[in-house]
C-alpha cells in the first residue's frame, strides 16, 4: 500500500546542506496501523509531508497504491491526494464557515460528487465516529475531541488508500486522547484502512501495531514492547 524506497531529504541554507532524512526505506501493507515516532527534529514531520506529497524529496521514491508520487505534477498530486490520501491534522483544521457535515463532505466537493451522495456518506461517517447529532453544528460549537472526530470522518470520506494523522491527539486531554485512539483503532479494523500516525508520544505510538522510530533522520524499527499493544502476525514492516 505504502512503499518508501531509499528516501533522503535535505534542506539547503545558503551553502550549508542539512540532511533531515537519510536513506529511509519501509513498507506498510493495507489495513495496517503504523506509528511514526520521533522527538522534535527527528524528521518525522518532514517524512509525513513527503508521504502526503506536500514536498518533493531530494532522493528516493514514494509509492502509494502502486503510484510513485515523487514524479507527479502539482495538479496530478492534487488529483491523487483527492482519491488516495486522507489527512488528520493535530489542530483539526475544520473550516469555520462550514457545518460539521459540510466539512466532512469537502473532499468529495473537490471530486464533484453529487450533493445527495456526499450527504449520505457524511452522515454515515458521523454515525461511525459517534457524533451523528452534531451534523448541522459549526466547528466552533464542538469540543476539541468532537472536532477531531469530524476531522477523522473527513479523512475517511474519500475511502483513501492511506490516512496520515499528524499528532492526532496532540491538542487533546488524556481521556479524549484515549477516545480518539480507540476510534482510530476501531475504524482501522472495521474499514481495513491503512493509518500512519505521526507522534512524539510513545504512549500513543504504543496503541498501534507497529512503530517506526526516527532519530536524527535515521529509521529504527521497533516491535511493540508495551503491555497494552498487540502484535498481529509477522513483521509487517520490512526494512530493506
Amino acid at each position, binding site marked *: 500500500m505504502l512503499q518508501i524506497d531509499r528516501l533522503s531529504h535535505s534542506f539547503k541554507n545558503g551553502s550549508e546542506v542539512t540532511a533531515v532524512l537519510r536513506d529511509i526505506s519501509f513498507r506498510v501493507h493495507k489495513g495496517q496501523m503504523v506509528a511514526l515516532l520521533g522527538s522534535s527534529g527527528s524528521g518525522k514531520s518532514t517524512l509525513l*509531508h513527503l508521504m*502526503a506529497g*506536500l*514536498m518533493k524529496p531530494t532522493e528516493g521514491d514514494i509509492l502509494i497504491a502502486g503510484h510513485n508520487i515523487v514524479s507527479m505534477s*502539482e*495538479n496530478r498530486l*492534487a*488529483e491523487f*491526494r*483527492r*482519491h488516495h490520501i486522507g*489527512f488528520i*491534522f*493535530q*489542530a483539526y*483544521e475544520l*473550516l469555520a*464557515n*462550514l457545518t460539521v457535515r459540510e466539512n466532512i463532505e*469537502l*473532499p468529495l*466537493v*473537490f*471530486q*464533484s460528487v453529487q*450533493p445527495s451522495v456526499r450527504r449520505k456518506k457524511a452522515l454515515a461517517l458521523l454515525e461511525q465516529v459517534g457524533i451523528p447529532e452534531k451534523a448541522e453544528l459549526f466547528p466552533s460549537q464542538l469540543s476539541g475531541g468532537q472536532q477531531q472526530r469530524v476531522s477523522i470522518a*473527513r479523512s475517511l470520506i*474519500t475511502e483513501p488508500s492511506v490516512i496520515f494523522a499528524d499528532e492526532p491527539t496532540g491538542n487533546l486531554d488524556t481521556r479524549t486522547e484515549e477516545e480518539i485512539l480507540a476510534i482510530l483503532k476501531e475504524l482501522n479494523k472495521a474499514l481495513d484502512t491503512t493509518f500512519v500516525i505521526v507522534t512524539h508520544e510513545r504512549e500513543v505510538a504504543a496503541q498501534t501495531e507497529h512503530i517506526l522510530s526516527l532519530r536524527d533522520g535515521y529509521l529504527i524499527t521497533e516491535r511493540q514492547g508495551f503491555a497494552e499493544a498487540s502484535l498481529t502476525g509477522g513483521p509487517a514492516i520490512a526494512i530493506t
Partner: protein
Amino acid sequence: MRLRDITRQSWDQVKRRKVVTALCAAGISIGCAAIIVAMSIGESAQIYIEQQMNSYLKMDEITVRANNGALADDSGGTADSDSLQQGRLTGQKLDIMRQIAHVSAAAPYLQIGHMQMTTMDNKSAQNPTELLGTDLETLASFGHSFLYGGLSDMQGTIVLSYGATLGLMDEETRDNLQKQMSGNYYDESLIRQMESLNRVPGELYQKQVRFVQYTPEGEAYSMPLRVVGVLAKPSGSTEDSIVYDKKGYISLETAEMLKKELKLDGERNGAFDTVIVKVDDQAYVEQVEKQIQKLTVTTETNLYQKERLAGEFKILKAAALGIGVFILIIASISIVVAMTMSTYQRRRQIGIMKVLGANLSQIRNLFIVEAALLGLLGGLLGVMFSYWIVWGINGLIYRLASEQDSVIIFIPLATIPVGMAFALATGIFSGIYPAVSASRTDALTAIRRD
C-alpha cells in the same frame, strides 16, 4: 467541482467577510452608478434636445416642393407652363407619397400668405397670421390637438394655432403703447407690459375673424371666416416662441374661395405649393426622401441637424462612459488590494483545501467567482444608487427649472446591462491576480503552525 458548490462557498465568503465585501461593493457600485448615470444623462439630454429640435425643425418631416427644373437655379430662363408639368406637385403625386412605406401622413399646403387677422370687435395682433390651405384632416397626424372645438366640413371656417389667438388688442391700445414706447425703448416696465399683452389669449372660438388684403392700388378686400377650432400649444414650445407662431388653417376649398375673394394671384390648377410628409421614424427619413425624389419634385429635410447632434452626443456619451470606466478602474484597485489581503488571511484555509485535494484551478475558480459575486453585488447596488441619483437630479431640475417641460433624466433600460457588465467585468478582472496568487499558495507553508 460543481458550479453550485463553487458559488455557494464563494458566496459564503462574501457574506462572512463583511468589511471586505462592503469596501469592494461600494467601490464597484460607485463606478457602476457613474456609468449608468452618465450614460442616462447623455441619452436623456440627447432625446430631450432631439424632441426640442424636432418641435422646431421637424426632423421627421420632409418638405416637398414643385420641381421647376433649370428655373430653380435663378438662371433667368423662361419656360412655358406645359414644359413644367412634369415637376408639378399634383394630387396624384400626393396619393403616391401617402402609399410609400413609413409615411405616416402627407399634408398638402397652399400658401395664401401672411395677413392681418381682425376680430369682429376690431382687435388684431401686432404680427400677421400665416394663412395656409390644407387637408384639415391631417392636422392630428402632424401632432396637433385641439384646445377648443375641432374640424368642420363647412366652408368659410378656420382653425387657428394657439399663437394666433395671443396678443389681440384694439388699435387704440396698441397706438397708446407704441407712443409710450417711442423714445423709451429701454423702459423695462413698458417692455414687460407689451410682452404680457402679447401673451394674453383672446377668446376666438366660434367667433368670426376677418383677413384683409390690400391691392397695390390701395383697395381692400376681406373675407370673414368662423373659428371652429383652436389648436393646443405644441409641446416643447416656450411662452416666448408661441407668440410668433401665428397660423390659420383652412380647407383647400376655402383657400380657393378666399383667393378669389381677396383677388390673390395664382391659379392652383389642382397642384399644391408644398406637401409635408411625416415619416413614422427619423431613421427612415432619408429612405423615404429618396423615393419621393423619384416623383420629379424637390425635397428638403432637417435631418442633417440630427446627424450633427448625434455626433456631438456620441463624444459626450463616450466621455461619460470614460469617466465611469475610470472610476471602475480605481474601484478595481480597491478590490485587488482587499482580495489580496483576504487571500493572505485565508492562506491556511487554502492550504487545508489543497491538502484535501483541491487543485490550482479549483482554488482559482473559488476566488474568481467570489470576485465576480462582489462585482455583481456592486453592480446591483450601483443600479440602485443610479436610480436614487437620477431621482435626486430630477428633483433638483424640477425645483430649479422655470419651464414645465424641462429635461427629465431617465435611465434607459439598455444602460443597466452595460453598467452591470462593467461591474461584473471589474470584479472578475480584479479577482484574477488574487485568485492566481491564492492558487499558488504553498499548502505546506500554509498549514504549518511553527
